[in-house]
């Protein structure tokens, strides 16, 4: 118990120090609130952003009302796009990566194309995405899918080709069919690589969603902080940024748990 408190105190020391410094600078009037509002102002704004804007009117369910805050709405929109886009990217990249990792000839065939396309940042596709899909969710999902696609593809390919051939020999010796070898040996053998690709992919997806929302969508966290700039609501910009950070942290923690579960057999994962 004591050590837990100790750990907590040590973990909180740096953020508390920074907040105090920040509050001090603002209180002394060294910066205008428009350039940098005080942390207290940001916190209040954040609360306002999270909480429902209308008083409870009794017509809708209580839960719907409690979740009707603008931030929750924006976060929901952003997350939905991340999930859809990431899902599309994952569903395309995983089988392709598995097949290409297992088949050297296919890899040689597709590799030059991949090497040329891979270094193009997904954000560079924005003009094309808008031309192809117009505005709104479709271009955003396209861009996010693209951002998730390459890291998952590359890692899956690398993962499959690094599966130790001794496992394949053992499986063939035990009479496993090619299909069984693929599902029960290659796929789990490549899993550590696949999951690190997924982690990079979801990070990229989260980055791309913010940019896509700033340009092509009129809701979501990215849209909201850009909108706040137009009204010089610096406190809202910072509140939005912190929310983006928290959601990113949440996604990363969830990924780590998934990793831990799927790789519980893996050396060095304990």
């Amino acid at each position, binding site marked *: 118990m004591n050590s837990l408190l100790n750990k907590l105190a040590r973990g909180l020391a740096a953020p508390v120090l920074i907040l105090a410094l920040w509050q001090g600078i603002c209180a002394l009037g060294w910066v205008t609130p428009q350039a940098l509002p005080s942390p207290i102002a940001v916190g209040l704004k954040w609360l306002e952003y999270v909480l429902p804007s209308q008083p409870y009117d009794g017509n809708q369910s209580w839960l719907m009302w409690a979740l009707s805050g603008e931030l929750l709405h924006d976060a929901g929109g952003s997350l939905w796009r991340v999930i859809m886009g990431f899902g599309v990217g994952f569903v395309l990249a995983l089988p392709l990566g598995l097949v290409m990792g297992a088949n050297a000839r296919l890899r040689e065939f597709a590799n030059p194309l991949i090497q040329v396309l891979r270094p193009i940042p997904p954000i560079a596709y924005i003009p094309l995405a808008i031309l192809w899909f117009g505005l709104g969710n479709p271009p955003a999902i396209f861009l996010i899918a693209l951002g998730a696609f390459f890291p998952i593809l590359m890692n899956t390919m690398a993962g499959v080709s690094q599966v130790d051939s001794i496992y394949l*020999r053992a499986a*063939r*010796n035990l*009479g496993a069919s090619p299909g069984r070898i693929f599902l029960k040996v290659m796929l*789990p053998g490549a899993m550590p690589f696949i999951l690190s690709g997924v982690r990079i992919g979801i990070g990229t997806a989260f980055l791309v969603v913010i940019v896509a929302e700033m340009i092509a969508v009129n809701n979501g966290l990215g849209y909201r902080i850009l909108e706040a700039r137009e009204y010089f609501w610096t406190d809202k910009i910072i509140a939005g940024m912190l929310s983006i950070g928290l959601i990113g942290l949440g996604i990363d923690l969830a990924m780590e748990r998934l990793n831990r579960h799927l790789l*519980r*057999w893996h050396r060095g994962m304990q």
Partner: protein
Amino acid sequence: MITMALEFQGVAQRFQGQGAPVQVLHSVDLSIAEGEFVCLLGPSGCGKSTLLNAAAGFIQPTQGQVLFRGTPIQGPSPERGMVFQEYALFPWMSVEENVAFGLKARGENPEKIRTRVAELLAKLRLTEFAGRWPRDLSGGMRQRVAIARVLALDPPCLLMDEPFGALDALTRRSLQDELLQLWAELGKTVVFVTHSIEEAILLADRIIVMTHRPGQVKRDCKVTLPRPRDPADPAFNALKQEMGQLVMAEQHAFEDAERKSFTAD
């Protein structure tokens, strides 16, 4: 005419290395009878593992053929179960799942798989490790799991590639004893690759001493010492000395060749 378990007929193997092709095996002729325990003995690089891989069907010899019960070997099959020095357990499967792998691949019903796996785990004294990951086990335990995994499919022939090479001396002894017991009980043909002279004499009905690369049979020697064999027995030691001279001559040839190729580079 009796059909042999395994017949190597003029088996030669060349590998395309970097630069010149390497002749690993030079025309090996060898017949192994049903139920026989044969050790292939020789220095590293004599092609004994290559011979075993050809018997497993992992590689096709450049020349000649390998017959299993009179039929040419086309590819790997569970009737020739392979035990690797590196165990080759699937690290993402529990001990139990590893042992069940071949039975599932064969499409046995779940009830039969469960009883068969339990039976094998008991036989190899692994029951309390059923749910463990391979990484949690010692080398000796892992090799027991690997043996259980191939035995699950009841293969008439076991191919063992230096299976105890990575184990400490005591674990090695106890696994050697267990293997001999299993062999006496199940009557399987065993082809066992080793570079330990003592291990070969302790285990084998017949020791095939191989020459340095390109490997061929240097001496085919029956071991008639009664079992259980005792390494302290003078007859054991006499044989060990004789075998030792044969193997060491090849070992020196191997070292000389290595030195030569090093200076040639």
